Structures are given as C-alpha cells and as structure tokens.
C-alpha cells in the first residue's frame, strides 16, 4: 500500500514539473453480484471495486511515450490494493518505413468479434466475465513490436520475452470445471481448488514470436499470421504426485484472414492451424491435439442506429480417434470432433448516441451451451457514464467451454467519471 502511494506521489510530482506531459483518465466503481447461491466460490461478489486510471502522454519531435496506470481497490474477495501498469511504451520511427513500439502494451489483430484465432495475445477472461470495461479483456504484454511498410505489404513482428497465459477463472470469484473431480469447483470448497497452472520457465527459448503480413487484395484487407510460443490456455497437464497439474503446451500457429466491405456491410473470414508441438501424433492424453479453426462473420447496419453481426466458427480436433481413446482412458469428458459456435452482437444507440444497449450471445449447438452478455450504458454528461449489465452462462454439460461457468451468472452496475 505504502509502495503504491509512493509511486502515485512520485508520478504526480514528475508530471506537474514536466508541463508538457498530458494527463487524463477516469475514476470508476464496479459492483457485480452473483445470482446463483450454490456457486462454490469464496465470495458472492465477482467484483466490488473502485479504480483510478491515469493516462500520460508525451509527444516529442522524434518519438512519443504513453503510459496507462490503474490504481485499484479490490474488495471482492480478500480486500487489497492493486496497482497495474497497463501500458508503458515508447514509439518511434526509423526512416520512413519502420515503426517501433517498445514496452508494456496491448496488442490486437485478427478479424473476429470476441472470437480469436490468430490473435494469440494475452486475454483476461476473469475481467471479461465480471462486468469490467471491454479494454480489460486484453491483458498487456511486455514486448517489442516493429512494423515495416513496403509497397508489397506490411510486416508486423512482435517479440514477447516472457510468456503470460490467459487470465482464467481461478475459483475465488468465478468457478470452473475440474476434470479430475469431474465437477464445477471453486475455492469455496477448499483452497486446493485454486486454479494455478505452471507457467513456462522464464527463458529465452520460452519467449513468444508473433508475426503478420498484410496487404490489400481486391479490396480486401488480407493477412497471413505466424505464432511460435505456447497455448495461451493451460490445455496440457503433467502428473505430480498422481495429481494432474495444468500447464501450457508448446504451440506453433499458422493462419490467414480476409476482411472487406460487401453487400453494404463488412465481411470477414479467418482460419488457423494449431500445431501442438508437444503432441504431434495425438497420442498423449495429457496434451491437446493439433487442430484447425475457421471463422466467418458479417456485420451491417440494419436500421437507424441499429447494428448487428453474426459469426460462425468451426473448430476441428485432428487425430480425433486418438483424442477420444485418450479421454476415455481417464473417463474424462469427450468433446465432439468439430465444435460449432455461433455468435451474434446487436447494438442499438438512442438519445443522440448517449444511450447504448448491447447484447452479445455465444451459442454452441454441438456443446449445447451459451454465454450471453448484456449491457446498457448511459452517458449522462461528457464526464459521467453509468452502466448496468449481466453475464449469463448455461449449458447441458458442466464440462463444456461455457457450460462450466453456468454457476457464475452475475449482474453488475458501474459508474465512471472521465477527466
């Protein structure tokens, strides 16, 4: 706590001295309550927090810097002060074709709307499920990003020395499916259910490389992607004292995407091949098999101030027979060979775009589960926005992607003052 206060004071002093640094940000409170009393978490509040975000920007003649700092009082579970440096990077250009962005930054690419195939940058699903702003779905990475622009296209290259997996429900505020017990668990049932995967050792060979080549092709923005690193979710395991501990298997991914304007709307197509380097033959039941994923989506304005989109994603497990044999050996859940997922987003703006009503639905006809995100936000003034919404999960099985979160349903309210 003292450490954080010291940082804040140093920061404010530094910025008042350096008058050219611009500061803006927001103060926000978020409260989220669960609606299912049987949720085996340690707290009834997936979120109960107050946050101060400060954004600092300095633009020089030869480069610029940007920092985004979050000071958070998190009262949901064990109350604590949290400081997160969400972004802190410098940008500069060499010559006229080479751009650099170095430091802690948020990275996004790919074409899907909340569906990620070639975007293998760190995500924060904990924040996503509890009502935090959309920006918190993306977690920052410390990385070196360079972009080279040439007449044939642009090359985008990201090197992340230290891998960080996606932030997933750990059981304290959000429950999850435990394959060992075959049930939905949380820390409310005991500390042993704290989800704690083993990260790869901090070593040069464990760094991540992500690359993209883009160009315009017949009016479509077209890209090719490559990734070398690890699965961002801990889909693998290692047996330690007869207990499987989750870990992040090694991964190479190759993909493509197309996006362009058609039929008065926007169409996108994306595909990827996931090469599971720790189990190329598909024999190891503790490691994921390689897979192929494809996605197609379309968005258009359907009426005044009403926009809607739909997406269809299909994900196929390769060497499915070996996967099935492996799962049945341990009486674990067996997923369908191809998982289909449909999504739709509907956004309506009212009152001169000050009132925003939005819904996003994920529905898997093969897994038989859904996840519905609802949100209403009202911009009362240039500074003040109030919002409310909910996250609803449901499924026939406790082991599927969304079905496992069926006890995590929550409703939330949020107020923000922007300055």
């Amino acid at each position, binding site marked *: 706590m003292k450490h954080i206060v010291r940082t804040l004071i140093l920061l404010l002093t530094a910025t008042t001295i350096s008058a050219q640094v611009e500061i803006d940000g927001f103060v926000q409170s978020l409260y989220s309550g669960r609606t299912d009393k049987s949720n085996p978490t340690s707290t009834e509040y997936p979120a109960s927090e107050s946050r101060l975000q400060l954004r600092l920007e300095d*633009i020089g003649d030869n480069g610029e810097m940007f920092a985004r700092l979050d000071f958070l009082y998190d009262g949901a579970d064990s109350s604590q002060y949290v400081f997160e440096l969400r972004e802190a990077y410098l940008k500069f250009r060499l010559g006229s074709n080479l751009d650099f962005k170095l430091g802690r930054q948020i990275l996004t690419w790919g074409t899907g709307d909340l569906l990620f195939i070639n975007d293998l940058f760190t995500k924060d699903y904990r924040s996503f499920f509890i009502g935090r702003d959309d920006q918190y779905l993306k977690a920052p990475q410390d990385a070196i990003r360079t972009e080279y622009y040439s007449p044939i296209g642009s090359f985008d290259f990201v090197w992340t020395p230290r891998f960080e997996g996606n932030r997933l429900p750990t059981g304290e505020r959000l429950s999850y499916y435990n394959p060992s017990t075959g049930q939905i668990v949380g820390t409310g049932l005991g500390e042993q259910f704290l989800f704690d995967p083993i990260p790869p050792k901090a070593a040069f060979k464990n760094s991540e490389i992500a690359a993209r080549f883009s160009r315009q092709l017949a009016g479509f923005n077209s890209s090719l992607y490559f990734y070398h690193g690890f699965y961002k979710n801990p889909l693998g395991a290692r047996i330690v004292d007869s207990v499987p501990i989750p870990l992040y298997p090694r991964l190479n991914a190759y993909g493509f995407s197309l996006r362009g304007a058609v039929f008065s709307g926007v169409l996108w197509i994306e595909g990827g091949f996931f090469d599971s380097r720790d189990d190329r033959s598909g024999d190891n039941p503790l490691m994921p098999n390689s897979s192929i994923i494809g996605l197609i989506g379309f968005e258009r304005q359907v009426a005044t101030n009403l926009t809607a989109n739909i997406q269809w994603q299909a994900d196929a497990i390769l060497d499915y027979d070996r996967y099935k044999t492996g799962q049945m050996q341990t009486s674990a859940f067996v997923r369908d060979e191809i998982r289909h997922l449909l999504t739709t987003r509907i956004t309506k703006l009212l009152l001169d775009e000050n009132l925003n009503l939005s819904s996003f639905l994920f529905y898997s006809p093969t897994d038989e589960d859904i996840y519905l995100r609802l949100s209403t936000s009202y911009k009362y*003034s240039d500074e003040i926005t109030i919002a409310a919404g909910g996250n609803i999960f449901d499924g026939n099985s406790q082991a599927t992607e969304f079905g496992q979160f069926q006890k995590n349903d929550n409703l939330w309210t949020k107020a923000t003052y922007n300055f």
Partner: protein
Amino acid sequence: MRLLKTILLAALFSLFLSGFAQGEDATEIMKKSHLAYYYAGDDGVAEVTMTLINKKGKERKKVFTMLRLDLEEGGRQMYYTYFRKPSDVSRTTFMVHKTPDGNDKRWIYIPSIDLIKQISADDKNSSFVGSDFSYEDVSGRHWSEDDHTIVGDTTYNDRAVYLIESIPKRKIKGIARKLSYIDKENFLPLMEEYFDKKGKMVRVFRADKIETIDGLLTISVRSIENLKKRTKTIVSFDSIEYNKGLTKDIFSERYLKNPPRKYLKK
C-alpha cells in the same frame, strides 16, 4: 413590320431558351457550391469544436482534428479524424474513404484495445458522432443526386443569393425537399432549409461565419438545427489550413494507429 416580327420571335425564342438554361444553371450552381464548400484547396487540416445542444439547452463538446484529401475534384476524397475530447474517446481515430457513386468505407481505431474495426457504411444519413450533422453533411451530397431548379433570388445577411430547390432523385427518409440559399458571388451555401413530405421544415443548415483563410473562402462556423427534436449542433473551425501537402498514405491503417503528429497541433 418584318423586323418587328423577327425581333418578337427572337425575344420569345430567347425567353424559351432561358427557361431551359434556368434548369441547367441550377445544377451548375449547385456543382459550384459543392466544390466551393467541400473541395476547397487540394487538402485541409482543421481543428474543430463541435457543440451539441439538446432541447433543454444542455451542451456537450467534442473536439477533434480533421484531415481531408481530395483525390478528384468533386469525386473521391479521404477523411481522417483524431478525437481529443471528451476524454473517454480521446486518441480514438476514424477514417473514411469517400466514393460518391458507391458506398464509403469507414474504419475506427480504439487505442485502449489496439483494435482497428472496419464499420458498415451503408447509411450516409446516419448521425456523425451523435450530432445533428450526418455523414452526408460532413462529407457532402453529390449534386447529381437531386433535381435542382432556381425558384428565385433574394438577399440573406446582406448577400445576394440564388434560391434553389432540390428534390432527391431517390427517396430519403424524412426529407422531401431542400431549399438552398446560394451566394451569387462565391457560391457558398449560406442557408439550407429541409422540408418533409408534408411541407413542414424539419432541419436548417446555416453558415454562421465566413472568413478568407489561405486565400480560400471558408465557412468557419456552421450549424444544423433539428426542428423536430429541438436540438442544435454548432461546428466551429478553431483553425484551418489548406494545401498542406497531405498524401494518400496518411489515410491508411498505419496512421489510424500512429496519428500523423506533423499535422496534429499539440
């Protein structure tokens, strides 16, 4: 006698011809007006404050920098907008590739999630950032989309103006007719009145302040009033510069993510 007849015939004939000329002149005038208003110079950089006033008189301000590049006079254009205020949208960038005879292409970049999103650009009549200005008001409606006729002339704010009536060739929701007050000398639109199919005036555009900047006549303060909703939006150019030498490459995804600092005043 024959001379008199000839003169009479000539007079009648020229009157007849001028009737035709009236129709042509109207479209020519609207074309000149469109070019004077939307295509001044080859490019432009403007610092803009947009004030939205709701029916209770409550004000909201949006501050942004807008870059424009003409690819063809009266034809394709590119727009780039860098939002500064309010702070929750600051640093957001927005880009339009305008094609008069087709659908525009639009993109938005949201820095907090490093996301470039291409947005569907079907409706040119939808509101620009929630204001009373539509995309069409901001980037222009091609003169060939309406049938124009000169219905008279008058003075407006001590300026001699043509009164031109425009009827859309293809139906527009809520607007049946527009009456434009076009300055006879410089062809700028000083006022435009929009009427619905019942003949009721539903919105008004006004050129509130005109200045000469870089040798080009500019409407530096303009407003649109929505008479049905009783709201008003005032757009004021805090500064504007022409012919800065903007290039096509600025209007690309690269610059959506990396705003061209050279042209953005601090």
